[in-house]
């Protein structure tokens, strides 16, 4: 999805949150494909993914009125969808409804963890976008272990503040963290 489409989606979801029903069909169609793709990659079964996508879309649009227009709509919707898919996976494994074939096809713990990490990384990058330039630089320098000529105590203080702000931004955007 291009940044133009993404900002268009943000605007449409914001309108829907306000109660503008004219935006409903457009929001539904713009979210459907990414949500199905995400559920497909998590559940690895087309039929189950379609069911899960439907449930995920219900959850996303049920919560449309809670949407904060300051947040990007796509990661917000995908986070809800991913949570829904994970819940379905968990329920299935608890009830042992999964057939042997599906168990074999289902993502391994490593794959699930990788997908979750990818999603988390995507969310963390969105949260990073909320920070100031200097906070971003501090965090990137920390990540790359390139503290430059800044002395230890100053860097530590700066890093603590940047991490705190990142955590706040993450919590504000995704309600967790």
């Amino acid at each position, binding site marked *: 999805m291009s940044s133009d489409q993404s900002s268009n989606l943000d605007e449409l979801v914001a309108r*829907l949150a*306000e*109660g*503008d029903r004219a935006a*409903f*069909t457009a929001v*539904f169609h713009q979210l*459907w494909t990414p949500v199905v793709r995400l559920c497909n990659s998590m559940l690895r079964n087309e039929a189950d993914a379609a069911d899960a996508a*439907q449930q995920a*879309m*219900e959850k996303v*649009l*049920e*919560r*449309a*009125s809670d949407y904060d227009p300051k947040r990007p709509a796509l990661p917000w919707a995908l986070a809800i969808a991913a949570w829904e898919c994970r819940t379905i996976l968990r329920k299935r494994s608890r009830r042992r409804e999964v057939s042997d074939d599906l168990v074999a096809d289902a993502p391994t713990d490593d794959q699930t963890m990788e997908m979750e990490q990818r999603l988390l990384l995507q969310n963390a990058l969105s949260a990073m976008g909320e920070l100031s330039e200097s906070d971003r630089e501090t965090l990137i320098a920390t990540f790359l272990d390139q503290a430059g000529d800044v002395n230890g105590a100053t860097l530590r203080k700066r890093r603590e503040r940047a991490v705190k702000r990142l955590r706040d931004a993450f919590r504000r955007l995704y309600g967790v963290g």
Partner: protein
Amino acid sequence: MASDNLSLIERRVRRKYEWARARRAFWGFTPVLLIVAAAAALAKRPGSTLTFGALMFALGVAALWYGRDVRKAVLPGVALGLIPLVLALCANHMHHVCMGDACMSVCLPACTAGGLVAGIGMAIVGQRQRLGVGYWLAASAITLLTGAMGCSCVGYAGVLGLAAGFGVGLLPALARKLLR
């Protein structure tokens, strides 16, 4: 077939969206029932207070569910409606004011004065918000229904007094809007 299926899913998701909005509107507006209960407990005619309260609650929930401009009318509507409501409930407990031989109920003048203040307030808030007709109609209806919970103290005359006062208070703003 696939597109039929997708439109079926869309309809189902749409229903969920509407129900979620309705639930949210209902629970979000329930604190107002405390005002209705308090007004009914203090009013002389709890029956009519509860009727107006139920109408106001239904209208508020509908406005919150509908959204857009109309949703923004709910809070100012209730807040401004509290002015005639509180005045009328206080007047209820003052019984009559006598001047010489003539005695009169304070309820009617209290409702008219409360309506006038609410109307002026509505005009100020409405002009600041610069929203459409839906906003004005919803806010006015909620204000009048909230006030009417107390103004039914002297029967429908109190409600008429409230409406008249409200209309007079709102008149300058409406005239200015129409003349533009």
